[in-house]
């Protein structure tokens, strides 16, 4: 499992490349159960005294011990939960049980295409014990310094332990901090290089935006129709990054799309940009107002020229009335066209704002422009009430789709960036955060989460036990509606009952015949419990379905009743989901 996690994202020989780095570091995968280490550097193994086999698959907490500061552990846990980087001093334990201070520097690694956390890299720089040893030496007396230095290796461990209690904290030196940062940068650069080769890029900063902020394809289509230079930025994300940049913007500034997405707009400013104008813009954004300024911007065009940008900024609200984006429309001031036949640049600028508003609000409830195109074609057909295709024509259409999909899939496989005909990972508000996945991973029973807000209520999370029970692979079930578990003998009245409960937002327990994909393709009686799960704002975010194979019902007295265990999964999911929506940035 750990092997696989690493190999799918990065190309061959990455481990060898990482092994050449001199740093002590580990790489973990939050999407595997228990957030295990999937790579440990040789330096790390040497420092801790463990073998590679002993480390892979274990959680980073294995290296902490009784004297590790509880607050530091809490801070690391919190950084993981919030998917951000952290640097702190930490007391770790080697295999032999001796404790040593390290400077722990951890950063998340993001997938470039979807902004999801892929890995956490943790570089650990041992904090030089000299200072601490020195204290002891002073106590012992300077005459023993030589002896002491001589035995430094053996003694330092003991000293560590003795001295520990007094040390609430051990501060790393500046050079150690630099070393940690250097380590992180080196590891990141290797990860990036080798992910480039595999085609599934990762990067150290979140590029595309998670959660509610991946723009839906329908919104992107609508925005694509606006042929002027503009960007959308998201004020709800830290540092208000660009989430959309039009082609004209890229032409104007000379940057590539991946260079600007995820960045704050300030990269356009330069030495001669008037800071009072920047301040004015900031004020307007804070107040949620629109403004127009003239500002000196710097391009990335061949001549690296700067240009006067007549910039208009406006907030854009979504369907629920909240400010979802700011739109910034650029007009190169030198290009101001005075021909009477043209719209004034200011008007054109405002027309962009209007177009974005329309796209933004319409794309929320459902999709937009694609549908309206279809409507157009329907209206042209008005005379024809309906024209039914024959079965063979329908089959032909399906065959065509399948052939095209299969070629797309095959060739995407070769490039490493797989596509598929069904929605696998889930877009928009539905990528589960890595912290939620970590919490869910603790629940060792068979269950799935489905999202009632997506079309056909697909599975968005499936536990390992579910995969074992049903015999399917994770990628086969994610994005699917649960009905693939049903078969010819499944009682349709039970399915109906479940559907009714889901529609009413109620929970229910049913006994249902399910069909597995295990080797024997056996069917089994599933004691299924379904419950709605709310997020922190009280809205139903998921349904959880907990499966207990009816034949396995355990009557041993020392065990919890299967019904209780089933409900405990529901409870644990509720706790995890509720808090995962409370993350602050």
């Amino acid at each position: 499992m750990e092997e696989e996690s690493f190999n799918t994202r990065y190309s061959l020989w990455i481990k060898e490349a990482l092994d050449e780095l001199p740093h002590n570091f580990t790489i973990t995968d939050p999407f595997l159960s228990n957030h295990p280490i999937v790579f440990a550097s040789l330096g790390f193994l040497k420092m801790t005294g463990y073998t590679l086999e002993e480390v892979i698959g274990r959680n980073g907490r294995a290296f902490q011990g009784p004297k590790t500061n509880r607050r530091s552990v809490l801070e690391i846990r919190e950084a993981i939960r919030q998917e951000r980087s952290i640097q702190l001093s930490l007391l770790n334990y080697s295999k032999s049980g001796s404790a040593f201070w390290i400077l722990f520097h951890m950063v998340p690694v993001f997938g470039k295409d979807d902004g999801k956390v892929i890995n956490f890299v943790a570089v650990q720089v041992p904090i030089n014990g000299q200072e601490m040893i020195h204290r002891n030496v002073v106590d012992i007396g300077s005459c023993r310094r030589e002896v002491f230095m001589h035995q430094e290796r053996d003694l330092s461990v003991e000293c560590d332990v003795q001295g520990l209690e007094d040390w609430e904290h051990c501060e790393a030196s500046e050079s150690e901090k630099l070393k940690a940062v250097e380590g992180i940068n080196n590891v990141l650069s290797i990860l990036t290089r080798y992910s480039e080769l595999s085609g599934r890029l990762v990067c150290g900063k979140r590029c595309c935006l998670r959660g509610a902020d991946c723009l839906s394809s329908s919104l992107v289509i609508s925005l694509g129709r606006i042929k002027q230079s503009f960007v959308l930025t998201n004020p709800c994300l830290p540092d208000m990054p660009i989430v959309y940049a039009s082609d004209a913007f890229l032409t104007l500034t000379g940057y590539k799309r991946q260079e600007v997405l995820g960045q704050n707009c300030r990269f356009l400013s330069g030495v001669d940009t008037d800071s009072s104008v920047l301040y004015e813009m900031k004020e307007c954004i804070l107040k949620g107002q629109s403004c127009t300024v003239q500002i000196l911007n710097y391009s990335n065009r061949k001549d690296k020229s700067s240009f006067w940008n007549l910039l208009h900024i406006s907030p854009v609200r979504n369907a629920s009335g909240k400010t979802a984006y700011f739109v910034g429309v650029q007009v190169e001031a030198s290009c101001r066209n005075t021909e009477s036949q043209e719209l004034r640049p200011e008007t054109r600028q405002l027309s962009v704002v209007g177009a974005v508003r329309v796209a933004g609000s319409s794309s929320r409830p459902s999709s937009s422009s694609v549908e309206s195109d279809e409507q157009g074609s329907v209206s042209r057909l008005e005379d024809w009430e309906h024209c039914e295709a024959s079965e063979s024509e329908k089959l032909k259409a399906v065959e065509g789709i399948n052939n095209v999909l299969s070629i797309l899939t095959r060739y995407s496989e070769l490039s490493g960036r797989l596509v598929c005909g069904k929605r696998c990972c889930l877009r928009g508000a539905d990528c589960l955060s890595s912290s939620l996945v970590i919490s869910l991973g603790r629940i060792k029973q068979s269950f799935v989460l489905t999202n009632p807000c997506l079309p056909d209520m697909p599975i968005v999370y499936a536990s390992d036990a579910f995969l074992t029970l049903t015999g399917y692979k994770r990628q086969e079930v994610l994005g699917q509606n649960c009905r693939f578990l049903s078969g010819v003998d499944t009682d349709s009245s039970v399915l109906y009952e479940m559907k009714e409960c889901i529609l009413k937002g109620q929970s229910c327990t049913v006994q249902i015949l399910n069909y597995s994909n295990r080797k024997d393709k056996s069917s089994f009686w599933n004691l299924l419990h379904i419950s709605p799960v709310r997020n922190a704002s009280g809205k139903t975010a998921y349904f959880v379905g907990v499966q207990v194979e009816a034949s396995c019902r355990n009557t041993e007295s020392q065990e919890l009743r299967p019904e209780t265990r089933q409900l405990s999964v529901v409870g644990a999911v509720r706790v995890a989901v509720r808090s995962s929506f409370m993350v602050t940035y």
Partner: protein
Amino acid sequence: MLKIKRVPTVVSNYQKDESADESVGCGRNCLGACCINGARLPLYACKKLDKSAAGEKPVEPPLAFLESLVLGEWEDRFQRGLFRYDVTACETKVIPGKYGFVAQLNEGRHLKKRPTEFRVDKVLQSFDANKFNFTKVGQEELLFQFEAGEDGEVQFFPCMPLDAENSPSVVAINVSPIEYGHVLLIPRVLDCLPQRIDHKSLLLALHMAVEAANPYFRLGYNSLGAFATINHLHFQAYYLAMPFPLEKAPSRKMTTTVKGVKISELMNYPVRSLLFQGGYSMQNLSDTVSDACVFLQNNNIPFNILISDCGRQIFLMPQCYAEKQALGEVSPEVLETQVNPAVWEISGHMVLKRKEDYEGASEENAWRLLAEASLSEERFKEVNALIFEVIGCSNQEELEGTIVQKQNPSGSVTRRATEAMEVRSRTGLPLSALSFSEQPWLGLAWWC
């Protein structure tokens, strides 16, 4: 006599009719003598913790058994509709700022109740059988019996008769939950102990924190005068899967007791608090805190306790809000929010009753409210000095081998205990347990 008016929290569905309705065989399946015969409830006996193997293998942290039991039984009561509202439908957010106070809008918690007068100038009050107490709750509100086991293994009996003779400790739901999984741990429920810390009960609560094995499941305690509403010994607990601001506050070490319990004071936190951690055994930690609490309650100082980080850390917060309130010294804006700074609020989880308070919640407001509860710097120092003296004294006694008070196995110490006895009855460890083995007594850190 100092009194404040406040709306009591309804923790049981049988609390509404406070007028004594004590007909025999009352028909509501309560815990009274009328109904208890033949009653059965799962029994969870936790493993003896001081001997738990620590640090050998990093144990995977799947849902621990106790956690499954709490969550499963709680969810069952939830689906049976025993709660007054659906707490997961209550909006919750993190207040922007450095500390990350958590605010919840809970409009349903305090409806339909008239304010009642509470005496706040006496931390120890005797048990009053006529007032609401946990022997009056319905059996369906009980989740399971909980006991500190003698064995190295967890023992579980799915259907154990409630033994009235032995006065079981039980875990019950709070029908007005402030978060998912909100339960009450009621030590020896049938003994009708008043709300007062004793060594054995605090140890039981610590056991529960350790066995639940989830850093997001904490236990809390409010003394009388520090916003306990029911004078029947109980602890509270619930799940909130994020750190409390109190837990994040930096601390400064003040002293370490001979038993290795490290005592620190919190820095940069609105409520001046003590943090206890370490100790050579769990009992060391528990006893030290109990000593401090017994001192506080005997000296009529209201306080709150938070047991956090799977039982590794215990926070002790002496407070004076209710007293100030009764004397009219709390600022009106703070009073108006009707937020009572009990253990959860002091820890940083604010339950707000009014929409406008929720929408306008700011770190500054939260800070101002909590600061009102804190002892003054001077008073805090004074209290600390006294606490240290008490703890120091007890340590001294033990070192000289003069501890005589052994814990009665049936746990009847506190039942008999007079106030004077309570001071003496520190359940110190037998001297043999004082070996300074560096044996850590808990598993490894829980790293997400």
